[in-house]
Structures are given as C-alpha cells and as structure tokens.
C-alpha cells in the first residue's frame, strides 16, 4: 500500500504511529558509562558573572540550591579512579580512544588550582593508554591570565558569547555591569598572541534569546574571530512559574528554522538518511521500538560530577533524580535501580510521545521535564503539526536546491 498523501506531506501522523515502547537495560547504561566520551567536573558553584538567563539563577528551580560550594578534590580523584577501572575492564575499543576531561562551574577558571591538581593527578596516575583531552566551558573573563597554561596543556575551550555588545547584554557582571568588553579584549589578546592555539582550540557557544538571533551572532563572530558558534536556546526546563512571563519575553520566538531542523525533518519524513550501512538491512526507524523522547543512553556521552558530589549524566539536567553519588570512600551508582526509575518515567512518557505531533522532530530529553521525581507535560507537546510542516515545505519550495544540498552536504555527526 502506498502511504496516503495528506496535506502534501509524504506522511502524516494519522498514517504512521510510532512505537515508543522501547526501554533501557542496566547493562546498556553500564556499557554507556564504560565507553563514555567525557568526564566532567563542576569545580565550583561560584561564578564571576550573574547572567539574567543563567540556568543556576533565580529564573530556574530544578538545579538544587546553589551554596557557592567548591568540589572536594578527593571526590574528583575517586571518580577518576573508578572511571579508570571500568574503562580498563571494558573492551579493547577503549584503547587509544581519547577521553575528554571537562571542567565546568560556576566559572571553572576561578579554581585554577583545582584544575591543575586534577590534570596532575591524571598525568601521574593514568597510564598512557588513553589520549586525554582537557576541555572547559568558560565565560572567558580570566582567559588572559591563564592562557599560558591552557596553551601548554592544549585545553579545548568553549567560550560563551552571545554576539556583539548589545547581543551579549544579558551576560552581566556580578556588579550588574557589562561583561562584554573584558571578554572581547581577552579574545583579541589570545587571537593576536596565540594565533595557532586560538584557531585550533577555541570555540564559541551562543545562547539565543530575544536580543540576538543565530544569523546575527554567526555573522559577528565570523567577522571578528573567523569562527562559527554553536547556538543553543534558553534552557526550558525548571523555569519558575512566577517568572515564566519574563522567560517568555526573553525567548527568541522568531528563531529561524535551522539547517539542523530541516535536516532532521528530511531524515524523519523520508527513508533516505541512515547512520550506518547496517541500517539498510532494517526497517525505517518509524517501524522500530523507540525510546520515548529524544534522550540519549544515560552516561554514554558524559558523566558529570557536581560540586556537592552528585553524579549526573549531563550538566544540562537538574538534580531531580538520583543517578549516583561520589563520597570520600567510593562511587555509588546502582544501575538496576537507576534503570528502573528511568524506565518508569519512560512508561509515563510513552503515551505523551505517541500522541505528540512533534514526535518526529523531537529534541527533548526526558529529564528536562521531570519535576520532584514526577514526569510533567513536555513543553513541546502538541497535537497540531501543520504549521511547522508547512513552514518547512515553504522553505524547500522557495529554494529548490536546499533539499538536495542538505542531503548531500549537511552532516551532523
């Protein structure tokens, strides 16, 4: 049977019912951790900025109370020993595989002494079988003071900047002053005196809100620094109800449909794009058992140690669920219990995802809408889809080469 064409689409949700009955196994999560890409440390809850949209600030309520704590180094060393152990017993695939050691905050450069101790610990205690890459997300205000060390240790830096002075104005100093000039000068200094390092090890991340847009930010950063930023929206999970109006105002509601969205649309609405050759043997993903939401396998991308010893699978999610804990004695992760908790939430999410018109273009993580251990309604949930689909088709109709170009040239690997 041919798919019936409805409203000019190659499919419609009435015709394809996705199966969201997929669940995790404890082994799968454990394997994810053994082969994780990055081990992250939240060195401190302190920051030298007070950005209006900070996920740890007043507007959000799901990251726990910030006490300006610093990470106890013994916890960091415990986690490193644990990870070294499980990566060693894992398969040979890990050999020669780089592991990223990431430093987060607060602002991690406020704790350079801790960074240096962790780097020393790894260099002294980890055998050479792993290529370790140190990385950091920073606001760049202390970049100039520490550039010699970063250069020496070849740190990969992701610097937060939202564009030009006006674009960047939500990123305020603690005093309320503007942080832009200090950052801009630091970047220019590094660009001038460490050009090779700047070219190869520094990248930008921009939060998109009502004072900027991806095109403007990209144009600015390309012009000034020759670099394209990665753009991310304001964090949507855990917004305080009383501040939701303020949040809505700060959101960029006119953001363009990005290339990524268009590519995802093609991938989901056709059967033409596949990750691996082996996928050619299997039915289209719409015919498989899917895990509800767009979440990844917990810990498969990173393990994040918070300053209070809490373990999270990612720095972007709150502390609503207990994934594990590091204390002075050991690392505690109960994979069976964790899997059961996640699967219980996934069971609750199943019907929501099945009925959501956005389920083919979903980019929401399950943990983004968990509150007090309970699943809330996903902020992207809708049963109406025509507008988005029509907007996408309008773009393709306007630029006939776009579809082909995206298929042939775009790659999100």
């Amino acid at each position: 049977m041919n798919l019936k064409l409805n409203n000019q689409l190659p499919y419609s949700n009435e015709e394809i019912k996705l199966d969201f009955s997929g669940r995790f196994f404890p082994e799968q999560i454990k394997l994810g951790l053994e082969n994780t890409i990055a081990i992250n440390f939240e060195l401190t809850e302190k920051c030298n900025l007070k950005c209006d949209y900070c996920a740890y600030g007043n507007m959000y309520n799901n990251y726990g109370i910030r006490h300006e704590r610093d990470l106890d180094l013994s916890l960091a060393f415990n986690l490193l020993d644990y990870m070294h152990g499980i990566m060693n017993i894992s398969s040979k695939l890990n050999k020669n595989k780089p592991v990223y050691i990431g430093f987060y905050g607060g602002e991690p450069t406020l704790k350079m002494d801790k960074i240096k101790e962790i780097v020393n610990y790894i260099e002294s205690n980890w055998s050479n079988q792993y290529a370790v890459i140190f990385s950091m997300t920073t606001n760049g205000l202390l970049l100039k003071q520490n550039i010699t060390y970063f250069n020496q240790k070849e740190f990969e830096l992701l610097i937060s900047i939202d564009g030009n002075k006006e674009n960047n104005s939500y990123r305020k100093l603690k005093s309320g002053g503007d942080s832009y000039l200090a950052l801009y000068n630091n970047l220019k200094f590094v660009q001038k005196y460490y050009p090779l390092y700047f070219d190869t090890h520094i990248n930008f991340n921009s939060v998109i809100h009502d004072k900027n847009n991806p095109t403007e930010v990209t144009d600015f950063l390309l012009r000034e620094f020759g670099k394209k930023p990665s753009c991310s929206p304001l964090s949507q999970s855990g917004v305080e109800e009383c501040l939701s109006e303020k949040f809505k105002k700060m959101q960029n509601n006119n953001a363009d449909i990005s290339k990524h969205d268009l590519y995802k649309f093609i991938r989901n609405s056709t059967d033409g794009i596949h990750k691996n050759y082996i996928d050619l043997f299997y039915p289209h993903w719409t015919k498989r058992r899917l895990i509800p939401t767009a979440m990844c396998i917990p810990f498969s991308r990173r393990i994040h140690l918070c300053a209070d010893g809490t373990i999270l699978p990612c720095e972007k999610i709150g502390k609503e669920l207990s994934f594990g804990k590091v204390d002075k004695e050991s690392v505690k992760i109960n994979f069976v219990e964790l899997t059961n908790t996640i699967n219980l939430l996934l069971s609750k999410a199943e019907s929501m995802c099945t009925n959501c018109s956005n389920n083919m273009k979903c980019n929401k993580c399950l943990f983004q809408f968990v509150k007090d251990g309970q699943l809330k309604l996903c902020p992207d949930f809708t049963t109406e889809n025509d507008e988005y689909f029509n907007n996408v088709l309008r773009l393709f109709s306007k630029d006939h080469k776009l579809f082909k170009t995206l298929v042939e040239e775009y790659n999100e690997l």
Partner: protein
Amino acid sequence: MSCEKYFCFYSDVYLKKINGFVLAFNPNTGNIVEVKDSNTVDRISNSLDVFNSVISTLDIDKAVIDSMLKCNLGYTLKEGHKLFIPNSNFLKIEYNLNILKEAEVRILGSVLTKNIKEINLIFSNFYSEKSIHKRQKIYLESNCNKHNAIRLRNLLEQLIRIERHLVNLVSLNLYVSDMHSFKLIKEMVDKEKVRIKVVFHLPLHFYILHYGEFKKMSVVVHIFELKMLIDHLDCFTNAELNLHFSDFNNYTEATLILDELRINYVMTPYVFSNERLFQQHVFVDKEDIVTVGRELKEILSNGVINKNDFGKIFIDSDLNYGTNLYSKPIGTIDQFNVNEFLLSCFESEYSTWFLTRNKVDVCCNCKYNEMCPPISGYEYLLDRYNLCNILK
C-alpha cells in the same frame, strides 16, 4: 484523464534515469513505466531536479501521464498547489566510507563494530585453495592442525571480548570438521558464556560419527551426497540441514523426503559443470525482478552495498580473512587490532561489501541493476556477473 498541470509520484516510487531512460517502479504494486523518448526523459528529469517528486505535464505526451496514473505511480496536482514534495528516492549514509576513513579513533571502533552482521570461523585453510570451485567443499574437510586450531581459538576469544559491541551480530558461525578443534572452541564458548547465537557447521560424516555430542546446540549439517542423507535420516531431529546439490533431480527428490519428515533444511546449489541448472533455475527474468512487495529502500540499497556480503567476515585457519568464500582474501590477521581489521573490510579492493551491479560489466548498463538481487558467490564461480536472461 490527465488534465492537471502537474503529476506527483508517490513518495515510495522508485525513480531512475539511466542511459536515456526514465524508469518509474512502484514496489508495492509491481507496476513499472519506462519512458524512452529523449525529450520526455529530459523534461521529467529537469522537473524532478526542481520539485523532487513532481513533474510538469506540459509538453509531455498525455499517454505517458495516463500510463503512470493507470499504474498507480502517483496522482495529478492542480496549478497553484505547493510543488515541492519530499520523496525517499535517495540514500545517504552518514557514517559512510569517506567519513570512516577520516574518523577519530573515538568513534571509529563503535561505528565499525555496529556494521558487523556475521562472523564465520572456518577450521580449514580454504583461502589458500586457489581453485574457487574446490572451495565449495573445502571448508568441510579436516585440514586444520592443532597449532592453527589454537590460533583460531585465541582469535575467537578476542572476538568474544568485544562481543557486546557487536550489537548487530546475528550469528557466529564455526565451521568445524574434527573433534580436537570442536572441543577446543566448545570449551571456550561455554566458559565465556557467549550471549550471541553460536552455530556449528559440520560435515555430515563428522556429525554422524559424533552426533550425541551436538545435542542442545545450534547445528547445521552440510551434505553433498543425497544417498548419505537417506541412510541417516533418523539422526537429524535437532539439526538443520544444508543440502548442496548440483542436479535438479536431486533437489526435487530431497525436498520431497525432507518435507515429509518435517526436517529443517535449506538447499544450496553448487557449481559443477552445470551452468544449465543455473540458467534454468537460478537466472532471473524481468518478471522475477519486477516483483511486488519490496521496499524502496531495499532497491536503493542495492546501489550502495552488496546485501549478500555486507557485514560478513570469513576467517580461515591460517588467519586469512575475506568477505566472501569465493573472493580473494583481504589479508592475514597478524596482531589483532579491531579497528584496523574491520576498516580493511570496508576499504580493501578485495572486499565485496560494496561490490554492486553498477560497478561490474554488463550490469552497470542495465536499467534494472538496482532492482536485481545483489551479486552472489555463484557469480564468481560461474565467472559471469549477470545471472539473468535480460542482458546476455
């Protein structure tokens, strides 16, 4: 009948332009329309370049549009309708060969291992046998000395260690024909608690001699002599049979017996001065190619990978390895390095994973080359690629 200005192909219709033809095939119905007129072909392909699934019917012979409608290949559209409609008439592999060649070690191992479907360890040095015709039987013969058996066992141990990364591995096939090798690997497979499906392939004489040993195991017994099968029919209650036949009479006789006794079996023709058998019973006609009930992806995949061979690896007792029993070996496993080993199966000129009909003589000019079954080992044995009665 067709008075509208545009015609839109259904999203799962196979469209191909080759050698001045446009071919439109609906895999769900088996209907096919072939357009030969060069002006019409140009107009159709220009429209598809712009609108993806839609063609302008202006200046196209009405009979062509009518035949497409009649064959249920699409529907007509009015003017003013949005004309760009995505279809699935393309294939893109994100982790494709070019990406893999440049991939970081970080992702390489996990991507490569995902692509493995079947590993075959053969306790005989069959890749050293230059005559590929003789290779049809050699993997059933016992010519594996103790030293080589231990080497193969050690390799198996290393493969088992990465087993959980081989997420798409369907089976681990072990071709054994002597008791020493069998015990060596059986012990190891039991000890390591292998979770994937392990299938022992045994020659009939070996199976008959020790068949008490093979209970509760997945076993395929390979038989070349129909008479031997008939003499031992009571031994096959737990085993699957693979009956290799070179003569159609044997085929008919065997299927009658085995169907009656409800024994699991597959029949595999083997090449032995019997091209006629293949011409009569194996070669495909246009009717075989234009069949109903296939998926568009299945057809398009035939232009990208060889689905008979992709993901399969054969390793012999000298640790020579290849991707098809009858192709040349890719190399010899010296120091086992997963990434290097698997990457060579992608890259080597002797790998058959990407040996598709659009790359071989005769078939490359055939308009049905993606609709045709993938190239198989029989084509090496018969020394011709087009096992068909279309292009002779």
